[in-house]
């Protein structure tokens, strides 16, 4: 797992997703001042309302392999579909790289994707086209 300096965000993506983040309170769940990077194996991808989510298996800070809940915050199926997501975007067993804000609570493993920082393949190639949710 890699840590990023505070404030490392894609500005355009932040502007696009800011509204949804404000309307789905993730306050108190994720650390707003930290960012992590996980390289892990997809366990499950649920492209479903109210909010699609990923489960991946990746190492935690202490090196143990954990199942991580990967959230897109307030985004619904309709929003992610416009960014190129679909029910078959992620397949169990494939390896992806996820960047986002880690969950605050001790002993829970979650990461919030925001600011248009979509998961990528290990070689850096994009999985989805991205763009506006609206």
């Amino acid at each position, binding site marked *: 797992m890699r840590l990023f300096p505070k404030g490392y965000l894609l500005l355009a993506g932040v502007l696009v997703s800011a509204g949804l983040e404000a*309307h789905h309170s993730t306050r108190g769940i994720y650390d707003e001042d930290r960012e992590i990077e996980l390289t892990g194996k997809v366990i499950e991808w649920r492209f479903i309302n109210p909010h699609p989510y990923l489960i991946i298996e990746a190492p935690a800070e202490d090196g143990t392999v954990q199942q991580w809940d990967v959230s897109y915050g*307030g985004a619904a199926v309709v929003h992610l579909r416009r960014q190129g997501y679909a029910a078959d975007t992620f397949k169990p067993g494939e390896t992806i790289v996820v960047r986002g804000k880690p969950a605050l609570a001790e002993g829970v493993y*979650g990461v919030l994707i925001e600011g248009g920082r979509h998961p990528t393949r290990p070689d850096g190639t994009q999985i989805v086209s991205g763009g506006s949710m609206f």
Partner: protein
Amino acid sequence: MTNRKDYRSALSRPAESLAAGVALALLGTSGFAADEIPDLAGIWQFGSCGGGFNLSCMILEEDDELLTSRAKAYRDAIDEAAQPKYDCAPMSVPHMWTDPYAYSIEQHEDRVLIHYGKDDVVRTVWLEGHGHEEPAVNEFFYFGHSTGRYEDGALVVTTDRFTFDPQGLNADFRIPSSTQKQVVERFSRDGENLVLEVTTTDTFFLKEPWSFRVTSRPFQGEWEDSWQCDLEAARQSLKLLPPMYPDDPPIERIEY
């Protein structure tokens, strides 16, 4: 996407308007001049406060100056995990308008239907002058009871009889609403756009009325009219939430 004209009220067609106006006069109900009924039918983009994607005017902040001390006390005491949204319960009005989803309006002779693009919400506005039955004194509703009238080129909707709702003013910041909440919505046209003005009062939780005005453009995308909330997905983020009352027995949820 359905042709918007399919939804237009019969009162908007000139020949039928005259006949309908006479009929309504004979029935003793208040008639409307055909040009006072705005064409609101169609599918609309979520409202913007101006300047593209801008929802800022609709936000009731967690520590908003409009909130009474009572509202803040409730906000601080409410366990986030107990919020109805985690059981797929929708947000009520006015908070529903503050989320970026399209919505459709159908105008019928005696009612207006608002289909919201989230949570499979359909609100019925019962137009005055059609003999619709009033709710009984002991009836309260999650989305309240809405009555409407056309006035000065707008549809004015008044909604009350809301149930007490722990997320009734804002589902993100645990700001509740009481049975005294009343929401007045005014829908009008501004050229190609639809203008929505909302004023909310709640004497328990707001010091004064809370108002916002947004403009919606005609929706250009593909209308998805089925939300189908998944209960497990709705509750997923709770796994990351530290318990607010750790000494209480663990929560056991009903699998609806």
